[in-house]
Each structure stands twice: as structure tokens, then as C-alpha cells.
């Protein structure tokens, strides 16, 4: 038997594949490059008209599809959605992948399409990977509400934004100013140097602090890379480099809890203020032992609750997702849809010794 029998077969095969590829590609059109394509995408439900007085039908099938199952943050949001769906006599279900990868949500959306879900509430692992699946779900009659992490705007009806960047930035600066009397050196402990959210917030924090609290000086920003150990060490470094430091703001849940752990075991406990974005469960012991006075985060339960009411309003035809429409969201009151079909939940919730035990997430 010839030594390179397979080799020869394969070379033949590969040439065949190459030729086929060439034929296919030349047939496709003369070179498809970035930026020359993309006509206008469909503008959601632009054609429909809203009837603000429409009744929410009973037995709406509302499906909650988080980034992944068994994630405490989404479990709390799901509880909020379930409460809202209970109030409108709908049927709530939670489905989702066990790993948070870009494409893993697609088959769940397909299943929901097949089951004829009325409302899909989802937080996207990837802004584009689930788009075509959501398109199919919507053409099958489902209303799609994204929360926490949006898709491309044309792929959903409404996005519930947990808080505006301005709101997040101002709340943290206000909290810090309250704790240090509006004057003194403050440092920021962020996530990674290229974290989009954090960088946007930090820029707004600097602008807001400069205009509202001229005596507050933001001396530096350090990066803990959202790693507990590194954030811990960066905190230590900050306190050695800036002996007059009055406070640390950490706009990331990993950073703030690492910083709190360092402070609570150091001589700086109670002397250097710490605030930022954290979850009540992570921060409870540090609020109780006096290391931290107050910190902020949006309330994921409210986020899920509002998302569910928004989905119901869409399904009922009270809203279509167009700017300026208003609807009632149960306990949370009236909301208005902003530009690009975005609804803002509101100001972040501030957690302190008085209210922290009311929250479990």
C-alpha cells in the first residue's frame, strides 16, 4: 500500500474544498467588507399603536431567562419578577443555561418561542448572539424585555436600565462627601483599567466632585482587576502612599468587599471612609463592625419586578416601546419610556446599618 495514500486523497479533497470555497465566495459578491453593508434595521414595533387603558390579560406566560442559573443576583431579580407576575395573575417560569456563555441562551429562547411564551425577560450574555433568536420569538408574538445587560436595541422591545451612569456616579460621591465632610483626599479602587462601565462612572464622578465638592480631591485611581487578592493589596498600597487619605470609593463589588476586609483588620478602621457599589450580603459584617457606614447598589428585586410589569404592559398593548409612553408598574408606580426604548429603574438604593438586614442578595 502506498505510503501517502491518505495524503494524496486529502490533498485532492483539500483542493476540492478550496475550489468550492472559491466558487462560493465569488458567487456571493465581489468582496464583503466591514461598514459597507447594513441597511436600516427594523425599528421594533414602530407600526403598532399603544392603548394606555388596555387591560393586562390573565394567564400571561412570562419567562425569566437570566445570564445563568444559580447566580444569587439573578435569583433575587427572578423573585421580583415572580412577585410581579403573581400580582397580574400570570404564569411565571424561569429557564436558563448553567453556564453564562454568549450562545448558551439561544436554545432556551428557541424553546420559549416554540412554547409560545407571551413575555421573555432576559439579561443578555452577548448583545448580538441572541438577536436572531429574539427576532424569531418576537415574530412568534412574544414581547421581549431586557434588563441588566441589553442586546442591540433593535432586538428587544424595552430595556430596563438598573440606573443611569450619572445616578451611580453622583450617589457614590454624595455618600463619600457625607462621610468625610465634603473635604479631603479620596482615592478610587476600580476593577480593570479597561472596564467600560467603571471608566464611564469614574469620569462622571470626577466631574461631579469637581463641581459640587471643590474641597474634595480625587488623588488617584488604582485597579484591583476585580480580583479579591489584588484589590486587597491595592488598598494596602493606597493607605501607605497617601497617609492623609480620607476615603476610598470602589465602584465594583469585588473591590469594595476586599477593601472593607483590609480596613476592618487595620488601624485605619473607622478613620478612612469606604463606600462604593456592593451587595448587602458581602458588606453586612463590615457595616455591623463599623468599617463601612453606607454604600449603594440598585435593588435587583425591583429590577426584576419592573421588568415583569414592563413585559406585561407590552403584551397588553399599553405600550409599544416608543419614547414617551407611560405605564404603571405595581408598587413602583409610573414609569416613562425614554429614548431607544430604555426605562430607568431609578436612583441606586443606599444600604446602611438601619436597612441592610432587609436585603438578602
Amino acid at each position, binding site marked *: *500500500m502506498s*505510503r*501517502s*495514500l*491518505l*495524503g494524496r*486523497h*486529502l490533498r485532492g*479533497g*483539500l483542493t476540492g*474544498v*478550496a475550489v468550492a*470555497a472559491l466558487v462560493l*465566495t*465569488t458567487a*456571493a459578491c465581489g*468582496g*464583503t*467588507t*466591514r*461598514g459597507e*453593508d*447594513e*441597511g436600516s*434595521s427594523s425599528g421594533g414595533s414602530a407600526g403598532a399603536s399603544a392603548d394606555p387603558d388596555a387591560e393586562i390579560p390573565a394567564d400571561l406566560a412570562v419567562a425569566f431567562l437570566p445570564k445563568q*442559573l*444559580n447566580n444569587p443576583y439573578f435569583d433575587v431579580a427572578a423573585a421580583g419578577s415572580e412577585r410581579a407576575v403573581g400580582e397580574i395573575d400570570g404564569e411565571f*417560569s424561569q*429557564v*436558563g*443555561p*448553567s*453556564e453564562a*456563555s*454568549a*450562545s448558551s441562551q*439561544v*436554545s*432556551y429562547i*428557541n*424553546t420559549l*418561542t*416554540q*412554547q*409560545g411564551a407571551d413575555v421573555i425577560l432576559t439579561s443578555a450574555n*452577548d*448583545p*448580538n*448572539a*441572541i*438577536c*436572531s433568536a429574539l427576532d424569531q420569538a418576537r415574530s412568534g408574538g412574544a414581547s421581549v424585555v431586557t434588563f441588566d445587560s441589553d442586546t*442591540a436595541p433593535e432586538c428587544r422591545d424595552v430595556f430596563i436600565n438598573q440606573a443611569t451612569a450619572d445616578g451611580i456616579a453622583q450617589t457614590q460621591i454624595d455618600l463619600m462627601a457625607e462621610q468625610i465632610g465634603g473635604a479631603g483626599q479620596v482615592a478610587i479602587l476600580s476593577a480593570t483599567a479597561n472596564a467600560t462601565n467603571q471608566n464611564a462612572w469614574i469620569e462622571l464622578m470626577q466631574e461631579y466632585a469637581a463641581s459640587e465638592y471643590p474641597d474634595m480631591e480625587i488623588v488617584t485611581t488604582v485597579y484591583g482587576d476585580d480580583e479579591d487578592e489584588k484589590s486587597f493589596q491595592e488598598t494596602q498600597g493606597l493607605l501607605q502612599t497617601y497617609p492623609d487619605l480620607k476615603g476610598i470609593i470602589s465602584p465594583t463589588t469585588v473591590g469594595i468587599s476586599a477593601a472593607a476586609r483590609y480596613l476592618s483588620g487595620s488601624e485605619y478602621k473607622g478613620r478612612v471612609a469606604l463606600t462604593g457599589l456592593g451587595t448587602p450580603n458581602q458588606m453586612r459584617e463590615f457595616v455591623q463592625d463599623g468599617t463601612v457606614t453606607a454604600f449603594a447598589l440598585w435593588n435587583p428585586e425591583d429590577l426584576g419586578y419592573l421588568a415583569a410589569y414592563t413585559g406585561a404592559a407590552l403584551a397588553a398593548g399599553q405600550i409599544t416601546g416608543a419614547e414617551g409612553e407611560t405605564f404603571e408598574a405595581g408598587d413602583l408606580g409610573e414609569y416613562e419610556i425614554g429614548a431607544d426604548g430604555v426605562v430607568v429603574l431609578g436612583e441606586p438604593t443606599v444600604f446602611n446599618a438601619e436597612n441592610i438586614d432587609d436585603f438578602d442578595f
Partner: protein
Amino acid sequence: MTVETAPAPAPSGGAAPAGGAPARRGRTLPSGSVITTFLVLFLVIAAVSVEGFASTRNAGFLLLDVVVIALIALPLTLVVVTGEIDLSVASTVGLSSAVMGKLWFAGLPLEAIIPLVLVLGAVLGAVNGVLVTRLGLPSLAVTIGTLALYRGLAFVVLGDQAVADFPRAWTTWAISSIGSTGIPVVVVPLVVLVLVTGVVLHATPVGRSLYAMGNSEDAARFSGIDVGRTKLWLFVVTGVVSALGGVYWTLRYGSARADNATGLELQVIAAILLGGVSIFGGSGGLLGVIAGALLLGSVRNALQLVNVPSDVLNIVTGVLLITAVVAPQVAARVKGRRRRRPAS
């Protein structure tokens, strides 16, 4: 045509080693027919008892989920038949996707990117092949290494960015179906590749030489087969096909990311083992592998439709796989005992 032919002995003119290579480990059943029967049974039961399962739309969803798994399973089945393994396939998908995104972002036309990505796949496969065949390292160790290496490189290329502005014409083609049948158009080229692979494996001297290698590498070498060269080429083809999978994955989800297809290698290998291919090499057929991929996909699809949570889904898949691997062993042992009894 029957894709399932029993592996013939090494095609050699009397150069076979003494003893005539007895039936070996794992060569118990041609379980392709067993798994195909299973698949048909399952489809019938699901169609009757699961609401929404038997519809053209659902068939389309199901097939789209299976396409990449089945595609990569084709060359990987040949690799496994020779007694080797390639665990780096999903990382090759990820790296191909990342490179595709990077090149698209840089302004290259897709018509140039796709051939480049396929060449990249060939190189990645060749690295595996050279390490295994020239340096004589075990493929399990080599490809665990490249699994990590290629995924790492994907993150070097694209970081945690996603490139998503691929032309709509291409991304909708990737999920479009043939008329109103619900069958995705990509199933057509896939079927062609299945037929080609089936013919190569079951009806050519090359295919027979792969079984010979899987049964006894020494025997194969003695009968004049260039084992190293053949295996090297198999790894190269696996790389190219995985890169093709990466291209399709990127278009299907409209998103090039470094973490695309993470963990997919396990689903591909699961389909192969479920299809009755022995992990030790030397036995199994392509029909079973395709049936295995379809069965895994159908089970997940049906269970999702009846709202079984994803954790339970993973458990079911695991149990199914263990059953598929253990059942032939048990059957073989029972058969062996029966055969021994009258003799003693």
C-alpha cells in the same frame, strides 16, 4: 447505502502479524444500529408526548444546535478510530472565531477572511499532529495542552471584546431554512461532508487502514501503512474542519468572541462515544456518530420543551453517555460468559 460496514482486517498481503489480530477491547457491537434504533424510538416518543416537538420550526432549532457538533465529529471520529483524540477542537473554534472577528474589524473582506481562517485551522491541527506523530507524545496530553493554549491565544487576539457587525445577509443565511421545511440550509453541505467521510471511512483502503491502526499500530506499520503521516493529516483536517465550525459559529450567532464554543469538545466526543466508537480506537462507524449527535440534541431539545432545568439536563446527558459506554461492555461480558460456558 450502508455507511455501517464492519471494519475489515488490515489490507495487507500476508504481512499481518502472527495470531491474525484477534478482536480487541471495545470491539464489541456495531452499535451504530443500536443507537440509530434508539434515536428513532426517542423521536417517535417525543413527537407523540412532547408538545411542540414535532414541528418544522422546532426541527430547525434542533438541527441548528446539532450542526457544528456533527460537523466536527466527522474528522474527529476518524481520529478516534485510529486510537488518538483531539480535545482542542472547541478551542480551535474559539480561536478561529476570534481571528475572524479581528480581521473583519481590520477591514478585510469575508471572502478573504474565511480561507485565511481555514489555513489557520490547518496550522493549529498540524501543531497537534506534529507533536503527536513526530515527537511521539500522547495525543491526550498534547491536545489538553493546545486546548488551553488555543483558547488563551483567542483571548490574546480579542480579549473580552465581541465583534458583531457582520453583514446581515451572511448571518441570516447561517440560520435560514430550505423553503418552509424548517431544515436549515447548512444541513445540505453537512450531509455532503457526512457522505464523503462515510465513504472514506467505510469504503476505501484509507478507511480500512485507520481501523488497522486503531487495532494495532505495530501491525498496521508492518503491513506498510505510514501511520505517522496518516495521523498527521487527520489532525490537520480536524483543525480545518474545526476552523470551518468557527466560521459558521460566528455567523450563526453573529458574534465573534474568544469564548465561543467553550466546552463544545465534550459534546462532540459525547456524540462519538454515544455513537458506538471505541475510545481505544479500531471500531465504530459514522452512522452511529451522526445518530449520537442527533440523539443528544433531541434529548436536550425535548427536555427543554417540558421545562426540565439545565442542571438536570446535564445529569441526563451524563447518564446517557455512561450508559452508552457501559452497555456494550456489559453485553460483551455476557456474551463472553455464554460462549465460555459450553466450552468448560
